[in-house]
């Protein structure tokens, strides 16, 4: 049997004695702090680093002298690292780590903003936050699709394909019908189509799920690329000019400073994505459906004994995942761009990274997606101010962070126990 339960060998050794995980992280943080205080402090200029509360240089701003800011935030990181090194109660670990990392990023920003060409020493916060969410959006949908699938024990490497198929069918049927809503439904069905293939082959025919995911990604790239060339390129007006959702302003919320213009004047996908995180989180941990899903993902035999229809739960969840990812794909073609070949371009795999980084948890996935979106947005921003940091290295950040996470350097990451193992009744 290919599906025997072989536990991963060489589990990370349990930290004992003085060098606990918390202390190691503290040491790393201390080193980062030293780096930022000394290096960033030295490289920063005396310009004021302005963080404006608007879309451009105008308006109110938080200001700090570049050198002072870089050194100050570096010292905060050092302090956080030292605190962890000295030993803090367990419940303080995450907050202290968070403060340390945020201070590190701020120190970096003080250096970059102050060292920008004259006249560009500002960072428009509204713009950055909005960009972060827009770039994180496909990741949020994709990671949620992963959560739905993998919590029920089906590995979903096909997120990329689901997003792509959603984007494609959203564009195609949105254009043909001229209605955004038809496009949205078509996108959901397109994503679900890839999911259906994944479900049938993984659950019914017991094909290895990672293999199936990889192959389905290629299939989606091939089919959408083929039809794109045959239909959309020959007659773009008819097949590739989908209507777009207009922005919806949410009363009251849109007037909140910074967050209002950044988040609450967006399009339907942004609201839908955030709402889905909430719904799936509550669903997974507070409802009967969620309990069944998790039990099927952790211990299908036990769930079956208690009368849960294991395969039915898996089919349903995998299809739901396709619907969610398909809508995520539509967030491209029904709001931002027209369809192009292979337009998802690896976002599905970053979504997978966000899923793992967020520990198979909807809220964790949201935070991870936002972090990756921020890295992406930062790369754009640094490119605009001619930074010395190559944008490619920032683009690597999500992937490197995920490698560190699964290597056990940033806390233990554990997949659902039955993830990837087909269930054979009897």
């Amino acid at each position, binding site marked *: 049997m290919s599906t025997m339960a072989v536990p*991963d060998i060489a589990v990370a050794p349990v930290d004992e004695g003085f060098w606990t995980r918390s202390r190691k992280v503290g040491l790393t943080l201390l080193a980062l702090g030293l780096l930022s205080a000394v290096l960033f402090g030295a490289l920063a200029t005396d310009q004021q680093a302005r963080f404006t509360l608007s879309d451009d240089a105008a308006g109110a701003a938080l200001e700090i002298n570049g050198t002072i800011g870089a050194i100050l935030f570096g010292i905060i990181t050092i302090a956080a690292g030292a605190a962890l090194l000295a030993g803090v109660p367990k419940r303080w670990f995450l907050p202290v780590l968070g403060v340390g990392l945020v201070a590190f990023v701020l120190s970096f920003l003080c250096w970059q903003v102050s060292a920008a060409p004259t006249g560009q020493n500002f960072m428009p916060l509204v713009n950055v936050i909005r960009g972060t969410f827009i770039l994180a959006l496909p990741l949020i949908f994709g990671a949620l699709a992963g959560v739905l699938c993998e919590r029920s024990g089906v590995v979903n490497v096909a997120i990329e394909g689901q997003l792509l198929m959603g984007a494609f069918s959203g564009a195609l049927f949105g254009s043909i019908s001229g209605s955004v809503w038809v496009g949205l439904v078509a996108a959901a069905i397109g994503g679900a189509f890839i999911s259906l293939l994944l479900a049938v082959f993984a659950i019914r025919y017991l094909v290895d799920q990672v293999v*199936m995911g990889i192959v389905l990604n290629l299939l989606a790239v091939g089919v959408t690329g083929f039809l794109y060339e045959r239909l959309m390129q020959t007659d773009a007006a008819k097949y590739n000019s989908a209507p777009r959702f207009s922005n919806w302003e949410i009363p009251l919320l849109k007037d909140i400073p910074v967050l209002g213009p950044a988040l609450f004047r967006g399009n339907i996908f942004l609201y839908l994505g955030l709402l889905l995180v909430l719904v799936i989180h509550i669903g997974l941990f507070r409802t009967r459906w969620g309990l069944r899903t998790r039990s099927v993902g952790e211990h299908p035999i036990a769930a079956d004994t208690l009368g849960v229809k294991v395969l039915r739960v898996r089919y349903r969840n995998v299809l739901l995942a396709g619907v969610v990812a398909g809508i995520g794909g539509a967030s491209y073609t029904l709001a931002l761009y027209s369809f192009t070949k292979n337009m998802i371009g690896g976002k599905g795999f970053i979504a997978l990274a966000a899923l793992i980084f967020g520990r198979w948890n909807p809220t964790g996935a949201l935070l991870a997606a936002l972090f990756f979106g921020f890295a992406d947005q930062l790369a754009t921003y640094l490119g605009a101010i001619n930074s010395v940091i190559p944008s490619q290295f920032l683009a690597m950040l999500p992937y490197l962070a995920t490698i560190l996470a*699964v290597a056990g350097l940033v806390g233990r990451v554990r997949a659902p126990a039955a993830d990837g193992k087909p269930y054979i009744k009897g």
Partner: protein
Amino acid sequence: MTNPNPQSGSPDKEPASEAQAAQNALGNTERAEVATEPDRSVAKPGPEPEPKPSLGRLFLDNLWAANTFTVTLLSLVLAIVVGAVLMIISDPDVLSTYSYITSRPSDAINSSWTLVSEAYANLFKGSIFDPEAFSGWLNGANGWQAVLAPISETLTYAAPLVFTGLSVALAFRGGLFNIGAQGQATIGVIMAALAGFLLPLPPGLHLLVAVLAGALGGAIWGFIPGILKARAGAHEVINTIMLNYVATYFLTWLIVQNGVQDPNRTDAISKGVDSSAQLPRLLGDNLRVHAGILLAVLATWAVAWLLNRSTLGFELRAVGANPDAARTAGISVTRTYILIMVFAGILAGLGGSNMVLGSTASALTPLVVAQIGFDGILVALLGRVKPWGVLLAALLFGALQAGGNRMQSYSGISLELVTVLQALIVIFIAAPALVKAIFQLRAARAARLQTSLAKGW
């Protein structure tokens, strides 16, 4: 496609039941198809077979049974049929004839047939043999090169796929899923190209150094997930996926650096590899086939030897079949995991070298590696993770790509159809039960077929 691997008949060495079952399945297939070879029926453990039926009877029995060969062939047929359907539904002219299919069905059938048969004929002409070129050669209208051009193209595309396919297959046999062949090939291509235009070496030595540099690059990129798996238990699927992207971004960054970028160009392209570091062409300068395909055959032989004849290969298969049992038997699982990934990296790195030292490209560009790493996964699965099977699968994929080029330029069917065909073939191969159900095949006489080997996260 019988497995021509002459070294696979050593079932007594197989340690675990899974490998045993697969071996039996394959052994039976082979016995049916090359039944004239008496040494095929090596002593197998298990019950004595019933009195042997006649050869012809055995052949007919196996022809329609769900064995490796039949399933592979029928998977191809299914993929071609789905491809034809895609072509028809995406062609507005042909599709319009279907609107009156009840009154004049001949229109719809004829136009569909013309479209599909022309496309697939071009696929064949572009990859294997073009009758027009042959008659042209007989008439003296063109040289002999035109006759061999399709084969040359096929071999050119196949060579790197052999390496990445072997990389994935080797890791599979050791129980690891190497999705990182793409990244390993990317680092390999970088190292090979850097050695190719930075080092002033004499011809011959330069080529050797450049090829080995590519292997080294792949080895480094394979070592990382290997050691993370062995020491920290981090799953190699996740890490190799992530490292693929890290490698890609590193490549796009490196190309535009001073000393690497072509000083006469503003776009992202590096300096060209010196001619002293390029793989020699086999059939003159007009045909693209180069020595890479010879290296690929050599690598196939080496991997087959490693897997089936060497101590390391035995340990590798033991770990792949059951790591716990292997550890109990005194095999160092950590060491084996690291070695597997390093070897897989070396192979993928060599595939990368092929992309820049051969005739496909001679300078680094962001897309220089193409898709060879991901295609390698498909090739490995199609080749049933056996070295010589991988070679045949790579030839098939190479032929599809070479033919796809002609299909695109002559029939206007975009190259993406080849991707679709490749993905479909592997989907059907991976689900033999589906193929069996569609064609109502008899169950094979031995254990069932399977290709899935990984074990989830």
